[in-house]
């Protein structure tokens, strides 16, 4: 883990994500991605923008090892994802945080129980976990709600718990798949503030969305995906600290 972090932040390696000629065709012959080649430097905030069905989710699923590319390869934080798969998916995921549109929370656990899960799966228990959970919940504005049941929270609050769960282990990479899709504009602004804050601390953020209005409000890089291909004419935006 330490070696990977050094590689990621050290000399000669400042690319958090590198996709080289990545294509994905599903068994039913639907082509979700076609020859995608892109690079996201460590510390950058990048929007993956495109309409529904354009392949954003497939792209993200390849990045966290849930899908294998049909051809080409992706290197994420030092882990190679090729058509043969990825060696240790769990190690790859321990180095990232993932947030979806739906919260994906465990209803039989409390707020802190859900957030702590990320640390528990790596064998961490006890006081240190408690401290980190409170820290993550403070970051998303849910301090004091540690012992609440998930069902007692609003949709926006549930999404914040998911974000806290994705951030609690301070991953170098955050993958977001339409995380604001179920939130109203006020909640979206709040949640975006959390992501911006995390980004300012050096975390690489990859945010897939179809909401172009949202994207325009932030000065971050845009990667346009249209029908499974990267539309290079509209790629632009800021460069993160890793550049």
């Amino acid at each position, binding site marked *: 883990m330490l070696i990977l972090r050094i590689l990621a932040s050290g000399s000669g390696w400042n690319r958090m994500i590198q996709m080289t000629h990545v294509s994905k065709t599903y068994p039913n012959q639907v082509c979700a991605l076609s020859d995608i080649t892109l690079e996201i430097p460590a510390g950058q905030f990048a929007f993956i923008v495109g309409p529904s069905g354009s392949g954003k989710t497939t792209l993200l699923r390849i990045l966290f090892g849930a899908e294998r590319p049909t051809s080409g390869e992706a290197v994420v934080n030092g882990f190679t994802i090729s058509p043969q798969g990825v060696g240790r998916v769990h*190690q790859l*995921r321990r180095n990232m945080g993932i947030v979806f549109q739906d919260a994906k929370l465990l209803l039989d656990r409390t707020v802190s129980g859900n957030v702590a899960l*990320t640390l528990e799966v790596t064998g961490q228990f006890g006081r240190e976990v408690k401290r980190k959970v409170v820290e993550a919940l403070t970051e998303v504005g849910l301090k004091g709600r540690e012992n609440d049941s998930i069902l007692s929270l609003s949709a926006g609050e549930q999404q914040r718990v998911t974000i806290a769960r994705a951030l609690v282990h301070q991953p170098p990479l955050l993958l977001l798949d339409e995380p604001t899709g179920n939130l109203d504009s006020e909640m979206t602004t709040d949640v975006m503030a959390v992501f911006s804050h995390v980004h300012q601390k050096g975390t690489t953020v990859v945010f897939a969305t179809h909401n172009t209005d949202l994207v325009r409000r932030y000065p971050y890089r845009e990667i346009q995906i249209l029908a499974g291909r990267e539309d290079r004419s509209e790629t632009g935006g800021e460069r993160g600290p890793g550049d």
Partner: protein
Amino acid sequence: MRGNWFLNLGTICIIAISILIFSAFSLIAFNLTSLLKVWEDKIEIIAYLKGKTPPNELDALLKSTRLITGIETVKYISSSDAMAFMETKLGKQKNLLEGIQPDVLPSSLEIQLKKEYRNSAKIKEVISQLQQFPQVDEIQYGREWVETFSGLVHSVRLVQIILGGLLLAAMTFIIANTLQGTISSRREEIEVMHLVGASPAFVQVPFYIEGLIQGFLGAGLAMMSLFFLFKVFFAYMAPSVREWLLRMPISFLPPETIAWFLSGGMVLGIFGSFIASIKILRYSG
């Protein structure tokens, strides 16, 4: 064993029923084998001799007989000894033998075998050697009894093995399916664990432990049920049959066999969990 108690209970009951059927056959086979051993211990050979054997020839015969492999002791029973034995057996009715000369009864050799020779296969080896002696007329050892009973025990053992194999396959299939239900009911939890980077072992081991506990409880339940049925069998049978059976060496399964069944249940539970988990616990999104 969090969550679905109904599914867990169902799995335990299925394991218990399967092991109960198999262990019932094992109990029958175990007791038949004990009976066979007792009867085999009582096996002796009686070699009837032709006419009157002169004393010097008799000594040589006894010496040669004792040299046969598998024979423990040889006792000569003369015609007079046989008559005396019959009189003792007849008791008050011994007057039935009045006027009968002891010579009517043939003299014989009463042969005790070494323990390892008290079975139908080994007895035949000894008998074939005894038949070589010209003084020997006829040999008796209750062959039919031993062979029939031995055949019965072998049949029960065969049924036990075949049934065991079939039940094992059926049990694995049923347990795997039931556990698949249990695992499926926690699919979301597994998905979230995979998402946050849980190692395959972190996700799978609790299911294996669950399978192990279910297997242990199922096997334990089966052993208790079998013991209960064993007691009920004796309690509700006709007194005359019970008295006859109580004279036999009939007993419940020995502790080491019970331990084997409990361990078998646990192995079965883990194996069932493993089969059930192959598909569902595969690492994915």
